[in-house]
């Protein structure tokens, strides 16, 4: 067991995932990730650089990824906003890289540095244009270690940039963790180096190996050459990238569940809020209200099918989040009006208490019939999921 901070767990996860290059710019509450990487990377024969700003930081990790490095940067809201243009470039050029955003209250300089979940929509839609992206989040120090490794694994496997959302509380809290042994995935190399098409699929060769490559943020063909006036090709390439996520959706979607077997009421939450939700579930069950929890670790692509399926088994859904109501929108879209969906929000830099969440669920139901059932008789009875 090791008592470590969330940001330290993120850095350790990155190192264990095989990260060899970090570029960043200091910002609270993410700076400790950078300090740990500055310390650890040179020990591992890797490279750390403090860039002149966050725009340069994400540019450098994309540049280094094309030299073959596994790369990461970390920031908070204002820096994440600055990174958006090049995040789109990473997506367009199918560049494996991990961008950590430890969320603090926004907009602008906002509440430095109180926790927030205000960047969940920006993480999906912050850069212009349709673009494939994977967004993960975490609710504990151990979770942060595991999701950091997962972020690298998914980014390397599918050549899609991965955003990992922490928040000021997760970043700075300390918990005892046992570092788990996790599978590490590296980017796939093509079978044939001669004639390799750099944008045909998820296989990858860095600069310096094989033939000269062309990389551009312009719409391009499988050979990488720009096809900036060929809209049909541009749309086909975009749809193909989305299809790659869809083809591996079971690998990409990570979530945890509690008491879904007998749940009449469902709490859907993510990140730091899931800790209070978990405690609220226990409080509610003692009150006789059969409540279950879906803790989303993958926010994007959104677990639409799962939520639609779960909505069929419950009488109401509560979505608590530390913003003015963001993930409630895709939840409502997935539920399609099948059951009432209620939003519980706060953006004052404070966390929810379990009591606040429990109370909000109680307001949604008169049922007091829940009987505690023994765990383990249903695969959705609790635990971690991904296929």
């Amino acid at each position, binding site marked *: 067991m090791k008592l470590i901070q969330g940001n330290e767990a993120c850095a350790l996860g990155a190192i264990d995932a095989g990260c060899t290059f970090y570029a960043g710019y200091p910002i609270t509450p993410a700076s400790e990730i950078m300090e740990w990487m500055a310390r650890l990377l040179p020990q591992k024969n890797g490279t750390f*650089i403090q860039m002149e700003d966050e725009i340069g930081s994400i540019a450098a990790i994309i540049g280094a*990824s094309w030299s073959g490095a596994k790369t990461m940067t970390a920031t908070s809201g204002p820096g994440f906003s600055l990174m958006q243009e090049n995040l789109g470039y990473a997506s367009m050029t199918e560049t494996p890289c991990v961008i950590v955003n430890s969320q603090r209250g926004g907009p602008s300089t906002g509440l430095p540095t109180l926790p927030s979940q205000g960047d969940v929509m920006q993480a999906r839609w912050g850069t212009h244009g349709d673009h494939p992206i994977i967004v993960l989040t975490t609710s504990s120090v151990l979770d942060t270690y595991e999701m950091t490794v997962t972020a690298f694994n998914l980014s390397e496997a599918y050549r899609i940039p991965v955003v990992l959302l922490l928040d000021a509380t997760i970043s700075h809290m300390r918990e005892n963790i046992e570092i788990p042994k996790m599978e590490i995935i590296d980017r796939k190399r093509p079978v044939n180096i001669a004639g390799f098409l750099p944008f045909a699929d998820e296989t990858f060769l860095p600069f310096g190996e094989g033939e000269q490559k062309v990389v551009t943020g312009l719409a391009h063909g499988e050979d990488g050459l720009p096809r900036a006036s060929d809209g049909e090709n541009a749309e086909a390439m975009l749809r193909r990238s989305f299809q790659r996520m869809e083809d591996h959706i079971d690998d990409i979607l990570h979530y945890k569940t509690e008491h879904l077997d007998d749940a009449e009421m469902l709490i859907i939450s993510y990140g730091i809020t899931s800790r209070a939700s978990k405690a609220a579930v226990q409080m509610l069950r003692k009150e006789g209200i059969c409540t279950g929890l879906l803790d989303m670790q993958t926010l994007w692509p959104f677990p639409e099918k799962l939520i639609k399926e779960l909505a069929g088994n419950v009488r109401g859904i509560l979505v608590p989040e530390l913003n003015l109501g963001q993930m409630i929108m895709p939840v409502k879209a997935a539920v399609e009006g099948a059951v009432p969906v209620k939003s519980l929000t706060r953006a004052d830099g404070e966390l929810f208490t379990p009591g606040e969440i429990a109370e909000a669920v109680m307001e949604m139901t008169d049922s007091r019939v829940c009987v505690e059932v023994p765990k383990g008789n249903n695969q959705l009875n609790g635990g971690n999921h991904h296929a």
Partner: protein
Amino acid sequence: MPKTGQDLSKYLRQEMMPNVWCPGCGHGNITRGLLTSLERLQLPLNQVVVIGGIGCSGRTPFYVNTNAMHTTHGRALAFATGTKLGNPNLTVITTMGDGDTAAIGGNHFIHACRRNIDITALVFNNSIYGMTGGQAAPTTPNGEKSTTTMYGNIDQSFDVINLALAAGATFVARTTTFDFQDIPNMITRAIQHPGFSVVEILGQCPTYYGRINKLGDASQMLDYEKDLTIPQEYVSREEMIGKKPIGIFREEIRPEYTQQYQSIRKKAGVKHDS
């Protein structure tokens, strides 16, 4: 003296021809200079990465048959910094316009100079924003016209050479497209220099800068460049007035960034996993 009319076609990415540049554009002269340097240096083309920003100059990587990275506006040097650190064995060259260098990318430019990382920055300075239609650049001279300074530019222009010298670049040179035989000499020396190199090439944009400021066609603009510049080694203060010096302004050896990082690894005590 370099041969003219040399066949450099193997250094050109033929499938990208014809290029996007207007007739008479100076970027072709500069690109020919780069191709000539590649021929002289005989570097394996897959070990060279040419990284461009956005604008007319940003298209250069597409035309050079090396690895090419066409990035975002102003960020070429930040991408290049990652690429060089990720694999210091690669030869990394950036092609940037005056906007890339001194406006939107000014921050990256001065910090790359300060770090002395072994990258060659080619600055295509045509005093105007060409691709977007002739707006003022940070290098548009005071008093001159553009589509956003139709009454005359009240801004002072940046001198890219002084900027690079002040920020700490270790190889700093300026030439012009009039001195086209000098371009490959400068670029070759810059690539060979073990540190951050800046070569500013003053070039003509007859389509916008020339037309708006009534400087004539491409050949008349080359004459204008000749009259505007003066080799810096022969210049007295009086001769300098109203002129831009050309030549090599600094060539010095200072510890290079990726080399210095090796010593950081030693200090950190590189621990290899078994």
